[in-house]
């Protein structure tokens, strides 16, 4: 995409919406963060006015250390061959989010997946509470970073016995120089 047109568009959007953290990752991909209040309108505007008509995907990143989920809407403009990643930060504590199922037909599927995998609720999104991938899930949503899948798998599914492994370094210490090396007392 022509850099000038992109900048013009971003300038224009900046005036209307609360946009920050604009990063140009490569000529064909720019991302920015927008406040939740403006996000729905912005995405609609991008689709209808700026011809970002294709929703590549929609997903979420868990920044557990900051206590936020960053929703990512990846929009694509076929004419300009340019993708825009729109980040919307929301709180991890069950904050409800607008739904874009009226804008794209596949959006509700993504929202259903995000509800299941992160526990995010999208207002009025259809079939939101239907099981998507999981069935009878009784833990915290698995894609949240505090969910330890290995521990869970070990506890619930178990592993076949008959395995044990040595660490070369420790093994050699025990075998070859048990009293030496490192702090002794």
């Amino acid at each position: 995409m022509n850099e000038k047109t992109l900048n013009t568009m971003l300038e224009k959007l900046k005036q209307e919406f609360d946009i920050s953290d604009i990063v140009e990752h490569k000529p064909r991909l720019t991302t920015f963060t927008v406040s939740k209040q403006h996000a729905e309108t912005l995405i609609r505007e991008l689709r209808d006015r700026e011809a970002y008509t294709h929703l590549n995907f929609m997903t979420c990143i868990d920044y557990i250390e900051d206590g936020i989920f960053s929703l990512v809407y990846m929009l694509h403009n076929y004419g300009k061959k340019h993708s825009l990643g729109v980040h919307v930060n929301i709180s991890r504590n069950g904050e409800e989010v607008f739904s874009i199922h009226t804008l794209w037909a596949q959006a509700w599927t993504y929202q259903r997946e995000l509800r299941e995998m992160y526990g995010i609720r999208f207002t009025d999104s259809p079939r939101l509470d239907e099981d998507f991938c999981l069935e009878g899930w009784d833990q915290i949503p698995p894609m949240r970073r505090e969910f330890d899948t290995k521990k869970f798998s070990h506890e619930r599914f178990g592993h076949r016995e008959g395995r044990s492994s040595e660490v070369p370094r420790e093994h050699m210490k025990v075998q070859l120089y048990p009293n030496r090396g490192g702090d002794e007392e």
Partner: protein
Amino acid sequence: MFKKSLNTEDTLENAGLTVEEQQLFSNARPQAYEPYPIKAVEDFANWARANSLWILAFGTGCGAIEMRPLMTARFDANRFGVAGRPTPRQSSVFVIGGYASVKTLKRIVRSYEQMQGPKFVIALGICPVNGGMYFDSYNTVNRFDQYLPVDLYITGCMPRPEVLVAGIMELQKMIKAGKCNGANRYVDNFDWYKANQKKVIKNWDMPDYNW
């Protein structure tokens, strides 16, 4: 005839079902397969079983991808008496195609129990043995033999169709020798298997034994 077990002490609870549904499903326990009293007949039956293995068409995991070459012209398993069968009632072999997610496991259990004995299970790949690729996944089981009896394991990721053929030949040998009694193991340890199944399948909304 088998709708309800007459022996009230030895019935299944079917606690996962509603009261109306409990009327619809059988609550009898499975019964072990008794060999024919005359050994020659049993041997002959085993010979017939071994040479006519009908595989349930249920691609439970990655394994399904190598079933296609197996059943089509390149490897042509029909030569060995193997055929695909779309319904569990008529199938005698269940090929577990690799990993089983919890959601699929529920369907696998159902399909398996609907199969009529004698029935055999082949587990493909590493995942049913010890978790394999997905040993740390929250949605796939690690040891398949905890949930259903497996007669034969074929390791590999994916096992090639050639190994599948070799596995089928091995299974045939075992059946002819009368050694494939996984289904009876299932019946004998039914409660243990059921408890394991229920441990991972949390929304148990089907009968305890699916006839």
